[in-house]
């Protein structure tokens, strides 16, 4: 190789190494951060019943839980059912009406074969259709509990959160996106009024 060729080769080698150091540093830092976060998980704060929780899109205050056989509509269902009902206040903090509260809170740890809850508007005693912004309402979520599983005495609810992105990563369109759970609420489940047990 001539002197000139060796010079350009050395320059290319130096450039290659410099770029490689940057990439290696990025990989190492990312790996270290993942390991650190796995070793020190963020603690989800415990919130007392009745305290308002800001989840981004909704402000929710969970009040009480009870077991019953009559849903909040007041009419007894045709087949006897066990219903776990949770009463809460919900306030829509976004700029448009929404009915996206289906997965706002979930029972933790999850119960097998539990269908999604039905949400009732306390004011109407009927199935909730959607909440308007800045108009808080008292609502009731009712889970139809499977008959084989005993109803718990203490209920642990994990409350999820959402953030608003003005431009998302795919279309650049505005939207609400799920984030980590923001609170855990523990409630005592009041037995069925009339004392007929489970």
């Amino acid at each position, binding site marked *: 190789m001539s002197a000139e060729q060796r010079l350009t080769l050395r320059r290319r080698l130096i450039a290659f190494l410099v770029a490689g150091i940057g990439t290696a540093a990025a990989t190492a830092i990312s790996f270290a951060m993942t390991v650190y976060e796995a070793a020190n998980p963020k603690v989800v704060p415990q919130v007392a019943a009745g305290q308002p929780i800001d989840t981004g899109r909704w402000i929710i205050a969970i009040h009480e839980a009870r077991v019953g056989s009559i849903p909040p509509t007041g009419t007894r269902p045709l087949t006897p059912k066990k219903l776990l009902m949770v009463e809460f206040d919900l306030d829509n903090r976004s*700029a448009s009406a929404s009915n996206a509260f289906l997965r706002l809170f979930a029972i933790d740890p999850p119960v097998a074969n539990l269908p999604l809850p039905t949400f009732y508007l306390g004011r*109407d005693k009927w199935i909730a*259709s959607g909440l308007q912004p800045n108009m808080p309402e008292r609502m009731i979520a009712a889970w139809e509990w499977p008959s084989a599983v005993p109803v718990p005495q203490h209920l642990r609810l994990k409350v999820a959160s959402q953030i608003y992105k003005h431009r998302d990563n795919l279309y650049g369109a505005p939207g609400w996106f799920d984030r980590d759970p923001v609170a855990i609420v523990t409630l005592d489940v009041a037995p069925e009024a009339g004392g007929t047990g489970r």
Partner: protein
Amino acid sequence: MNNVLKAIVAVAASAAVLYGLQRTTPSYGEITSPIAVTGKLGKRIAANAFVIGVVKVHLARTVTTKSVGRTQTFTSSGVWALVEGAAEARSESLSLMSAQWLGRDGVRYALSQRFSTVPGFLPSQRLEPGLPQPVLMAFEIPEDQVSEGTLLIARTAWTPLEEEVRIELTGVGPDDIRPALVLARSEGAVPWTLKSE
């Protein structure tokens, strides 16, 4: 020296231009936002696919619906706004599925779905070309959003570049709030009657 200066100036100028372009690019939401056709309360507004006019806005704290054998009273933490109007399709049968009350501070309140049966409810009316039909819309809004509101009516809420009629609700204010409204079915040309108490 001159060359280096020219290079620096060129880079700085391109950076400035690119920064300006980045700041002024409209977002996806703005690019696909509905095309507005504006109008006023009481006027007949003609969009490309449909014609709509809002006749009267009733405000009340409670609404009582009377249907066969059942009387229900609906309360609200705000105010009920029942809007009476008439709509007609222009060239093809269609349904107007989306109606929103745009409040003074930019918050949108969608149609209330709490009434189980509303005669003449806008989303359930099939509008035929050449046949104007009376339509009714119901909204729940906080009391401070009653004045300076705008009605946004479109075929769907999510289709990009959908035609949307914006009706400025001038002359509607908190003085018009009645204590109660009674909504009942009627057999005449207008399928409902609204009485305030």
